[in-house]
């Protein structure tokens, strides 16, 4: 009791969590609110969500899509505590040579199946009037091996995320056909926490939000300290300051709590989530038992709900971010 | 009353009879050798004496005790192979005869020192003192069997059972083992049962020679009948039957 564990994995918009733990910012805020928070890095993103879903962790960094499918679909009532950013080019569909999306017909595409990459591909194909069945295959390829896969002759197109996108884009004959900047606001990266835990321990939410926005302010400042912080994050993600800054450029970071609150409360999110739910249902990701695309309910800050109102398991909340915006922490 | 008494023993494996109606009484201190064709059940008979197996019918009793259900310290045994512990030195093999019956299989302190001295004395007696710290693998076959016999005797069993103890030795070594066994018996009289393939060895060493054979024989089903004791020779007096043949041979 009073002791919590948060999991995170390597992604441009989540690197601050590693810095928060290493720099002692977390400890300071935790002390202030009388809790104990341990921030644990995962090498494997899916495993981090599974651990959270199984109850081994109290919070996890996750995208809106995976938050809906894994914990919420698995019956774990989850609250989006911090909307950190949305992908604005961080996820991309890359092909060898050139061409258009329509040229993908009859070709295989390598990606991490059932991930946001898969969602991006579906949206890209939509935009060209194609369906997945028009492709030769969707080859499930581990993100850890995506760069190696790109180097093989079998691979003609991949969908992946940063820092891999940057590395592959740097190869001579690669072309980005479609990226998340084409569907702004649909791939949302957030810190999700267990709703019950949060309700019972508001101090946890305050400590996390406080620590996060202190770090945001530090990172976004053009000061020496800001550069030092970003350099540390760059190294942790295996690149240098310039590389990391480039990745941040493809990420629509919400540097201030006010920005985040505004986005979370916008209609964009309300439009995105049902589309994501439809995609998940279509792919069978909501599970064998899922009767329909809206069997999980999603609640928004204004109290509205999409999906089944009797089974609300994912909640977008601005409560704590608003406190930060109000300077109440 | 006789010392070892085997009363109307039958032994079968599955529905295949090996021994039939075996009865014999043996006096204390008698050396009995057991001969017979290969596979006729000599080792089986020894296993029954050892209480390693219980007979299908009948019973074996030693010194008037109720039949044993498993081997114990009252029965010593030496097999043709694997008779000593390869992972113990020669001395520890002898020591094992006293140690293994302890609670944890080990003696400590004064008890151990005393047992060690007795072991060294035993080794000196059987002429193995100079190799006390070696492992059995370093010994010749004859020395290994000598060790096995010394080990069995160290536990002071009431009867000693030998299953072709010299079967794997070459003729010269075998002769010296005969002398060794004869000397040992002269020192400590004991009741011995020895299975052997070699008739002359049997008569040379034993007081009494038992011959196992089938008395009934079905040429179409050679496995139908078991063997029993067909001859019982007194080997002390040049082979005059101790008792006459047990049953007519119905070949």
């Amino acid at each position: 009791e009073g002791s919590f564990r948060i999991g995170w994995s390597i992604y441009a918009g989540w690197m601050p969590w590693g810095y928060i733990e290493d720099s002692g910012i977390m400890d300071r805020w935790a002390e202030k609110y009388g809790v104990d928070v341990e921030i644990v890095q995962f090498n494997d993103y899916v495993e981090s969500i599974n651990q959270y879903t199984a109850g081994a962790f109290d919070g996890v960094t996750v995208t809106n899509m995976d938050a809906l499918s894994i914990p919420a679909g698995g019956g774990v009532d989850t609250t989006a505590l911090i909307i950190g950013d949305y992908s604005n080019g961080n996820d991309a569909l890359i092909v060898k040579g050139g061409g258009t999306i329509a040229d993908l017909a009859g070709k295989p595409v390598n990606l991490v199946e059932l991930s946001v990459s898969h969602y991006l591909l579906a949206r890209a194909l939509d935009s060209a009037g194609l369906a997945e069945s028009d492709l030769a295959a969707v080859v499930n390829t581990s993100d850890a091996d995506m760069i190696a896969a790109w180097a093989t002759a079998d691979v003609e197109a991949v969908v992946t995320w940063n820092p891999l996108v940057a590395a592959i884009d740097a190869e001579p004959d690669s072309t980005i056909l479609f990226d998340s900047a084409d569907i702004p606001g649909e791939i949302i990266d957030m810190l999700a926490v267990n709703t019950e835990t949060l309700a019972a321990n508001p101090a946890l939410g305050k400590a996390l939000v406080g620590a996060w926005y202190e770090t945001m302010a530090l990172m976004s400042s053009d000061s020496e300290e800001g550069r030092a912080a970003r350099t540390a994050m760059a190294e942790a993600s295996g690149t240098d300051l310039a590389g990391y800054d480039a990745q941040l450029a493809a990420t629509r970071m919400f540097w201030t709590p006010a920005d985040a609150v505004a986005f979370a409360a916008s209609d964009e999110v309300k439009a995105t989530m049902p589309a994501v739910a439809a995609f998940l249902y279509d792919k069978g990701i909501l599970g064998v038992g899922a009767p329909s695309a809206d069997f999980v309910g999603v609640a928004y800050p204004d109290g509205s709900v999409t999906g089944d109102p009797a089974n609300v398991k994912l909640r977008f909340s601005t409560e704590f971010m608003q406190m930060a915006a109000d300077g109440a922490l | 009353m006789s010392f070892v008494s085997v009363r109307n023993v039958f032994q079968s494996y599955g529905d295949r009879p090996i021994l039939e109606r075996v009865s014999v009484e043996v006096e204390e201190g008698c050396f009995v050798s057991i001969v017979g064709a290969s596979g006729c059940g000599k080792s089986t008979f020894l296993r029954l004496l050892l209480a390693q197996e219980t007979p299908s019918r009948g019973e074996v009793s030693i010194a008037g005790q109720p039949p044993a259900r498993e081997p114990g310290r009252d029965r010593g045994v030496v097999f043709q192979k694997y008779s000593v512990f390869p992972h113990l030195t020669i001395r520890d093999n002898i020591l094992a005869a006293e140690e293994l019956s302890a609670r944890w299989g080990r003696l400590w302190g004064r008890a151990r020192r005393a047992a060690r001295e007795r072991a060294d004395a035993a080794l000196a007696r059987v002429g193995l003192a100079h190799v006390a710290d070696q492992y059995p693998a370093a010994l010749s076959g004859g020395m290994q069997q000598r060790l096995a016999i010394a080990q069995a005797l160290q536990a002071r069993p009431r009867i000693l059972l030998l299953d072709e103890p010299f079967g794997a030795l070459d003729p010269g070594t075998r002769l010296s083992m005969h002398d060794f066994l004869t000397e040992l018996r002269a020192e400590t009289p004991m009741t011995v049962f020895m299975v052997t393939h070699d008739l002359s060895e049997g008569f040379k060493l034993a007081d009494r020679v038992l011959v196992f054979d089938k008395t009934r024989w079905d040429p179409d089903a050679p496995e139908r009948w078991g063997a029993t004791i067909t001859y019982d020779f007194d080997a002390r007096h040049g082979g005059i039957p101790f008792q006459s043949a047990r049953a007519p041979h119905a070949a």
Partner: protein
Amino acid sequence: MRWINRRPGRPLAVALALAPFALAALAYVAGSEARLAANPADKLLPAPSTLWDAAMAALTEADRRSGEILFWNDTFASLTRLALGVGIAAALALTLGLAAGLLPLAGAGLSPFVAAVSMAPPLALLPILFIVFGLGEVSKVALIVIGTAPFMIRDMAGRVAETPVEQIVKAETLGASSLVIALRVALPQAMPRLIQAVRLSLGPAWLFLIAAEAIAATEGLGYRIFLVRRYLAMDVILVYVAWITILAALLDLALRRLSARAFPWAEPAR
């Protein structure tokens, strides 16, 4: 009576054999019920009935997209890769192992290298395999071969080298050349051992197969397990794990039977 001399009768032996399975099943059911009581939508330890439904669905329901029953597709794909990988490894073991065990020159050249290779962790070399063999079937089969062949080669070489020298000399006195000794004396006697080595290698082979399928594939048992791990579909995972266990046991049994059938002379007399 000593415990080492107490033998269970037939009914007791059966009961004892079943007991641990029953205990494991009980522990599972208890754990599952506890979790489901706390969260009825819990996916981690699905109820036995859910498992049963998932198994039935996997076995009978066609995929919405492809119209095929994925379960059988996956099984077929994985078994094909496994058979190819282990088959190639066995063939290598037979030729190289025979050469290294029989010919001193080949042994001097091969043995140290194979010993060194057998110590390397094949999983870590996957990226290179992908470049060399591409992302298709070849690299998966190659991983199995690289992962299992060194052990098999060493095992065979050792076994062939143990052929009693008396037999080799006997064959020589009957006029046999090196080739004939290899083909007619060493090889047939090494065959039962090869099957034994294959049986021992099947465990690692499954591991490599699952690892390779997890990294890049469009079908296969390992692919499916790692794919549905994305949404914690433990019902599907457990069904697949059980199925792999059954397949492994069946393969093992089949190989044992094959060996007994094909090489009766190598069976221990009983």
